[in-house]
């Protein structure tokens, strides 16, 4: 029996396979395999194992690993086996290592030598085995070790070897193009090999090369065309026929190459017309492989310079595909159609019905392909139907990956072709409602931007309509459960910005809704932050309009709750809201101008408005600000942090009796002496020092502190001065020294802002933000020394809490922002920050949700050079203009075609499933029937060997090929 010859296995192995096959559960299987691993581990190291036995062990290892268990203990034995002289063992060894090892595995180095030797072997089968291993195991570094031998094999007398050598070179090219660039000419040469198989193999690397740089291979167009012609004319030996097709795989590869070479090149394309036309005519459309070649022809035709006759032939084939009963052919037809409509859009028209059928088909693959086609043929005239369909489909599927994709396509199409603003908003609502957490957060920004800016026209009434329709739809949706976070953010923002704008809804109604949102999503800080800011806006607009503000009781309780929130961001927003509500109309209007989300915010980066204050303070004996370059780094932040953490532990619970001395040890000395410069590396952002400078300047001015302490620190600095500080590290060292100088006795604001800024450079930011007040206290206590620890913290937190509202009052206009940045967590910055975010098309990473989470991102954004934002603004303007034009087009009456397209959607929905129950049988193997006698014999034999077949049906492949 052929199945055993040369590949025979012992009863042990068969028993293993059998018991695994009969395992009832995964656990049972695992137990068997683990037992097998134990056996192998024990036996494989026994001395003097016969080679045949060893071979079987290796096969069993491979089998075990295929079942998902670790067989790494046996890798070395597989490697050893590749050294064996016997071909059988060598092949087994190579098989095992190619399956076990990756190209970077440590053991590879032990194989390279063997491979080198084997590549030179007299026996071509050994060479083939080695080439096979080369493909899998040789990485960039080991390529040079085997490259000369592989190149030499290109001239081997056996075509099988030549073929494999070419493919090995191809593999090298894929892995590291630079290592074989000098050998590219070899591929060209091998194209002329005596053996058609070798020529066919050469097409693989050439395809890759041409895909990268078609121009260098234009000279080969004639050769490729002539090869294809000869293949199509059956000038190849009969052995290359496959199902009566002459070398179809070679034809397919050639057509792919021609498609690349002819793309956008009229002259090259003209050379191809005849041969492609011939293939269209000659190709056998009844066999699977014939259709594969035909499909490739269509791809080629749609890629090269268009030729009417070929396009016609392609359209014919497509309609045959689409009319076919086979789902596979329909799939290919849809795919081909989506390629061809780029060149001749009118072709889609005649296939509408077929396309609709495919859309309704139960086959998911076909459906998706059809959606892809629709996506490609979307115009402003049919966008509504297509996007509606897509959304329906999106709702119906569970696969998140595809849901995300289709959602982003919906958004893209809606943004590009939206016929009306109202429709756009409705569509976006649906997308957000059903896939809100899957879509890119940028989409939410875009939506808010669109609502804020309108479509860029001067027509204010249209914009107002847009906004009020948005507000209305959101008020309708807002009560629904399980809305995605991103969508809620949009809703809150829009309600805050425009909820009361039309005068249709009262402030108390809107605020009530916003409170509901915040309550319903109490675990989502971002949504709550949006809701609170929206509340503030609504109240601010009320005040500015001269109406009296009556805060709802639920709103009041919400604010109170949030002002004690763990999230400093929420706390800040709550305090801000409370502060804003107490202001008079004039002040509010300046802080929070109505509908100004798109306006630029001017930032006085020099903080010049503080000059008089600085002077006054100096006159009163305050310490002058020391520029950062004069302050050299003193104490490493991270050391302080670690010190802080020690403190935390000592403050709370001490488990170790002798930890105490560490806290009481002078903090100024140990950190300095410990400070390794490497710890400064994490904070090298270039913009950082500038920012620090500004933030720091204020506190230093407001300094009222003790010179004594500063002097002491200075002394330390000199004593422990570190000339090793390199410039990239300066930013953090500056902040450090600043902290050292100012932090202890001066404005708490400085210390907190420093620590917060510092926090922002760490990933675990959000977690730290929550405990930052704790840290502030600890930092203060650390700087102030043990004696002051008790008093400092309380004053700190008070001051922090209050510091913001005076800042807001004091500052005028846009400067409010700048001044409030000096506050700890600038509430002001959060709401006003949004406009630049929305406009900032160039930076997808800066998103509004992120900004609300991370106040310091906002600070950076505000202090950024203004060009950045203005550039982004230009982008935004261009974009909206483009959208404009689109929308203008969309106003045009729908063209004839589009209405035809659109109608079937509604009328033919019932036509689905015309072709249920059609099988995709392959017609090629009909001649071969099952042979029951053979099967029974085999079954008997297997049973003799003690193996029961694992299925009731011994003739498992009865319907094979049938």
């Amino acid at each position, binding site marked *: 029996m052929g199945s055993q010859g040369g590949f025979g296995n012992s009863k042990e192995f068969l028993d293993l396979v059998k018991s695994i096959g009969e395992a009832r559960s995964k656990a049972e299987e695992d137990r068997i395999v683990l037992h097998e691993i134990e056996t192998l581990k024990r036996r494989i190291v026994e001395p003097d194992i016969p080679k045949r036995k060893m071979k079987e062990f290796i096969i069993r290892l491979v089998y075990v690993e295929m079942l998902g268990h670790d067989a790494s203990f046996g890798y070395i034995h597989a490697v050893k086996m590749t050294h064996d002289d016997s071909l*059988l063992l060598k092949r087994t060894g190579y098989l095992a290592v190619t399956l076990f090892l990756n190209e970077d595995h440590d053991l590879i180095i032990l194989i390279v030598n063997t491979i080198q030797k084997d590549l030179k072997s*007299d026996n071509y089968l050994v060479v083939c085995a080695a080439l096979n291993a080369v493909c899998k195991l040789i990485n960039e570094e080991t390529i040079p070790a085997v490259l000369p031998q592989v190149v030499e094999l290109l001239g081997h007398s056996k075509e099988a070897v030549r073929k494999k050598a070419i493919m090995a070179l191809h593999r090298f090219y894929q892995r590291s193009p630079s290592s074989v660039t000098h050998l590219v000419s070899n591929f060209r040469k091998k194209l002329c090999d005596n*053996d058609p198989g070798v020529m066919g193999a050469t097409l693989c690397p050439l395809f890759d090369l041409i895909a990268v740089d078609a121009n260098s291979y234009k000279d080969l167009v004639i050769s490729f065309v002539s090869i294809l012609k000869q293949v199509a004319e059956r000038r190849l030996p009969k*052995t*290359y026929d496959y199902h009566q097709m002459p070398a179809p795989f070679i034809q397919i590869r050639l057509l792919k190459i021609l498609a690349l070479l002819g793309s956008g090149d009229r002259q090259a394309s003209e050379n191809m017309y005849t041969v492609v036309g011939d293939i269209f005519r000659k190709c056998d459309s009844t066999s699977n492989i014939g259709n594969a070649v035909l499909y490739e022809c269509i791809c080629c035709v749609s890629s090269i310079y268009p030729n009417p006759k070929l396009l016609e032939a392609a359209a014919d084939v497509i309609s045959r595909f689409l009319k076919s009963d086979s789902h596979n052919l329909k799939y290919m037809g849809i795919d081909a159609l989506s390629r061809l409509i780029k060149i001749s859009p009118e072709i889609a028209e005649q296939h509408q019905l077929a396309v609709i059928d495919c859309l309704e088909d139960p086959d998911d693959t*076909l459906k998706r392909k059809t959606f892809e086609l629709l996506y490609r043929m979307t115009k402003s005239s049919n966008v509504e139907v297509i996007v509606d369909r897509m959304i329906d489909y999106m709702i119906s599927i569970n696969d998140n990956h595809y849901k995300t994709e289709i959602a982003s396509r919906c958004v893209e199409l809606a943004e590009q072709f939206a016929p009306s603003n109202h429709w756009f908003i409705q569509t976006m609502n649906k997308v957000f409602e059903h896939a809100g957490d899957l879509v890119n957060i940028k989409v939410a920004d875009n939506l808010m931007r669109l609502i804020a800016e309108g479509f860029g026209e001067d027509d204010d009434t249209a914009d107002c309509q847009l906004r009020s329709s948005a507000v209305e739809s959101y008020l309708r949706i807002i009560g629904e459960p399980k809305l995605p976070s991103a969508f809620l953010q949009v809703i809150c923002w829009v309600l805050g910005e425009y909820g009361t704008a039309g005068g249709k809804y009262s402030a108390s109604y809107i605020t009530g809704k916003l409170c509901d949102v915040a309550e319903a999503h109490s675990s989502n800080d971002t949504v709550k932050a949006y809701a609170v800011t929206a509340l503030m806006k609504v109240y601010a607009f009320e005040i500015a309009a001269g109406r009296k503000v009556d805060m709802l009781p639920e709103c009041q309780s919400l604010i109170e709750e949030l002002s004690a929130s763990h999230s400093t961001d929420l706390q800040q927003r709550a305090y801000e809201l409370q502060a804003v509500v107490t202001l008079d109309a004039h002040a509010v209007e300046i802080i929070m101008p109505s509908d100004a989300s798109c306006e630029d915010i001017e930032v006085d980066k020099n903080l010049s408005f503080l000059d008089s204050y600085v002077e006054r303070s100096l006159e009163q004996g305050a310490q002058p600000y020391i520029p950062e370059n004069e302050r050299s780094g003193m104490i490493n932040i991270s050391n302080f942090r670690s010190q802080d953490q020690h403190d935390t532990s000592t403050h709370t619970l001490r488990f170790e009796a002798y930890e105490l001395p560490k806290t009481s040890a002078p903090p100024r000395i140990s950190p300095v002496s410990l400070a390794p410069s490497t710890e400064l590396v994490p904070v090298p952002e270039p913009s950082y020092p500038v920012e620090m400078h500004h933030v720091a300047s204020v506190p230093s001015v407001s300094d009222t502190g003790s010179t004594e302490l500063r002097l002491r620190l200075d002394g330390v600095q000199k004593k422990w001065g570190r000339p090793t500080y390199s410039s990239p590290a300066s930013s953090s060292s500056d902040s450090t020294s600043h902290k050292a100088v100012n932090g202890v006795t001066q404005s708490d604001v400085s210390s907190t802002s420093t620590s917060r800024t510092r926090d922002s450079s760490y990933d675990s930011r959000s977690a730290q933000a929550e405990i930052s007040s704790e840290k502030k206290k600890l930092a203060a206590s650390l700087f102030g020394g043990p004696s002051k620890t008790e008093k400092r913290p309380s004053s700190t937190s008070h001051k922090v809490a209050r510091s913001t509202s005076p800042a807001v009052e004091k500052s005028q206009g846009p400067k409010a922002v700048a001044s409030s940045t000096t506050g700890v967590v600038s509430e002001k910055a959060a709401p006003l920050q949004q406009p630049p975010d929305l406009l900032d098309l160039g930076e997808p990473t800066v998103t509004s949700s992120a900004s609300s989470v991370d106040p310091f991102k906002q600070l950076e954004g505000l202090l950024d050079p203004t060009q950045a934002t203005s550039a982004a603004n230009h982008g935004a303007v261009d974009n909206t203009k483009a959208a404009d034009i689109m929308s203008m087009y969309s106003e045009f009456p729908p063209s004839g075609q589009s209405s035809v397209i659109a109608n079937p959607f509604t009328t033919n929905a019932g036509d689905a499933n015309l072709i249920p*129950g059609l099988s995709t049988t*392959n017609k090629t193997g009909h001649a071969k029937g099952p042979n029951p006698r053979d099967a029974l014999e085999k079954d008997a034999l297997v049973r003799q060997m003690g193996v029961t077949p694992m299925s009731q049906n011994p003739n*498992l492949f009865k319907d094979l090929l049938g």
Partner: protein
Amino acid sequence: MIRAVIVMNTQGKPRLTKFYDYMPPEKQQELIRRVFGVLCSRAENVSNFVEADSVFGPDTRLVYKHYATLYFVFVFDSSENELAMLDLIQVLVETLDKCFKNVCELDIVFNYSKLHTILDEIIFGGQVLETSSAEVMKAVEEISRLSLSLCFCWKQPQILSHLSLSPFLVGEVDSMHE
């Protein structure tokens, strides 16, 4: 390029797996599980193609064919043609059938290494090497025969020589590059 060949039975047990880019065993298991999940959810009379980018990354698709108790799955990227891959499965199965005479799942399980040999003759480093099952059979038989006679340097007769006697097909190309 072909990324992977997976043969598994209808219970999801892998019978043969070959990944042409290295995958750690755990990852392989996960992929096999997910592929099985996808295949299970497919109805009877639908196409043999599935877009696989959620399993194997962007620009991948898979073609599968269901024979008796086995699924044959080829995973590949856009540089291959779906219908052609379907035929390649056919080539593999035809070859197995010739090799084992009415192949069944048991043959595949018990002749694990032979299966790898056959596959290596059809697909090499992720590229289609040979599509004629007769040629594959010849090569495999050659290997079996030589392996049995443990003399590795035995010079074998030119059994396959008729191939190189075939008329030289690309003469025009040759002359062009002289």
